[in-house]
């Protein structure tokens, strides 16, 4: 091993420094938000809070956590996310698995049928009219069913299935296992990494999404997912109503409350994603190299 030269060592530290700066840029907005959510009103009014809370208190969190509106939205969104993830994973596996059989007749036609949907979208208004016809407007199912299969994710799963040796499948077939049994007993257990990765993609998509709810649900506010509730509050639609309820009239309190609400909606995902890093890296990479 060659001894690294001094200039190369300096170079190493320069790259470390660049990465530290990049990391700071990534976290500062969240840190600032967290600091604000924990700070006292008097400091917030003076815009005195940067990265560390001043006049530390948990009042904003107490307000948010004890507000039935947020509790409801949180539980509802968690439930929605759970159901969506399970359903989407099932649909994705159902779609991906049969397509790996070269002997399946009509596979080409099915592939074309699927691919067309990736290239051409009927558009916002036709989709809206469809939801109207299916009686899905104002219906909580509109947040679950229309987005329950992503072809992009299906391709990722299919690539993973392709990577499982055919010999496993063939020996099971010789033992008399049906194709369905092979899926359940061999493919699903061997595909935990891709299921973990796609579960994260679907879950994050649902947890963070608000566009569909904004378009399809207007009256039944109890079905608003957390992000839409947040959008309405942060942008002060129904300003008077919201402001009066929340104490948003007092400038300082408004800041800490807003920050606490945002933290409340974000922390769950921030706690989960680092643990799944290994899996989602594999998932993203697989989407790129395909079969």
């Amino acid at each position, binding site marked *: 091993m*060659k001894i690294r030269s001094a200039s*190369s060592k300096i170079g*190493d530290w320069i790259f*470390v420094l*660049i*990465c530290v700066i*990049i*990391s700071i840029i*990534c*976290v500062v907005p*969240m840190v*600032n*938000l967290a600091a604000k959510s924990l700070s006292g009103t008097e400091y917030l009014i003076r815009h005195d809070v*940067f990265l560390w809370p001043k006049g530390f208190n948990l009042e904003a969190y107490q307000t948010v956590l004890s507000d039935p509106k947020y509790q409801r939205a949180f539980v509802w969104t968690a439930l929605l996310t759970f159901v969506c993830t399970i359903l989407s994973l099932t*649909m994705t596996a*159902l*779609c991906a*698995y049969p397509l790996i059989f*070269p002997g399946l*007749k009509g596979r080409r036609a099915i592939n074309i*049928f*699927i691919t067309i*949907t990736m290239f*051409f*979208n*009927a*558009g*916002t*208004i*036709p*989709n809206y*009219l*469809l939801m109207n016809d*299916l009686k899905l407007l104002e219906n909580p199912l509109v947040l679950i069913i*229309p987005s329950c299969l992503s072809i992009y994710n*299906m391709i990722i799963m299919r690539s993973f299935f*392709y990577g499982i040796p055919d010999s496993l499948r063939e020996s099971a077939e010789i033992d008399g296992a*049906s*194709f369905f049994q092979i899926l359940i007993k061999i493919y699903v257990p061997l595909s935990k990494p891709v299921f973990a990765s796609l579960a994260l993609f679907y879950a*994050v998509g649902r947890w*963070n*999404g*608000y*566009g569909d709810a904004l*378009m399809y649900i207007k009256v039944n506010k109890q079905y608003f997912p957390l*992000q839409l509730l*947040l*959008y309405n509050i942060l942008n002060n639609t129904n300003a008077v109503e919201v402001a009066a309820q929340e104490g948003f009239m007092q400038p300082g309190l408004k800041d800490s409350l*807003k920050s606490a609400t*945002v933290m409340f*909606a*974000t922390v769950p*995902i*921030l706690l989960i994603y*680092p643990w799944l890093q290994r899996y*989602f*890296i594999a998932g993203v*990479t697989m989407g790129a190299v*395909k*079969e």
Partner: protein
Amino acid sequence: MAKEKVNKTKVVAPKTKFNKTYIKRYWQLYALLLLPLVYLLIFKYVPMRYIILAFKEYKLNMPLRDMPWANVKGQTDYFKYFKMAFKNPDFLRALRNTVKLNLMDLVMGFPAPIIFALILNELRFSKFKKVVQTIAYMPHFLSWVIIANLVTTLFATSDGLVNNIITRLGGEEFSFLSIPSHWVGTYIGAGVWQSFGWGSIIYLAAIAGINTELYEAASVDGAGRFKKMWHITLPGIKPTIVVLLIMNLGYIMGGGFERPWAMKNNLVIEACEVISTFVYKNGIQQLKISLTTAVGLFQSVVGLFFLLTANTISRKLGERGIW
């Protein structure tokens, strides 16, 4: 990648006949496919029948086929709503903004993950590298509602963090959000911030696939860090860069709804209105159904054209397409 693809498609399907034994063996696969295909049929194909509304006069509570064709004072003009759209200054502005913002996203957002991956690749401390990666993926997991809120709390004029710091240091307030050209910069910056870490994953994987012997040989020849980066790493990930660039160009007419909708503000309406927000406002809020269906069809068709072109170019270059 290209070679693998060729091998796969050359796998010859065993020639079985569509007979009793085949059905007995394979029916389960069709049963499994049933649900996904029905889903696609209903939610991706059935909506296409409403596209005809772009050429018709929309009437509430009337079956689709009974609605009259688009007409001007009784004179049938199938393209009435397309003409109307292209005379509508709001739509033309939205169209311009869509292309402009997408292009700027590409120019700023495309190189960022490549540069970041190259920088990460130079780190020698693997623990530190992992921490940096985890942090850089974080913005990808934030919703646009939250990113928009972060942007306002950081960059607002009177009480934003950045402007507070600027004024405390004796500088002058800078309006990041209320002047159209500045807003565009902030919007693009937020996009880069959100996606550069996530986007680097693919390039890191490509870099990991480069033969390490090349680096060793180059070291023996006395190549320094940047020489290796330029002559080994970059050529090694060039195929990935080319494919992703072409595919990104294919989405130039596309455009999500959640990002512009969350980040827009009324002071910069001339810069922040894009096609998706135009369609939402005019279609779903104001029920100009035929006009917005026409706009949506225009966007889909042009988008299709760009995507197919991108795909063809990508294949001509010997790379994979997206199908």
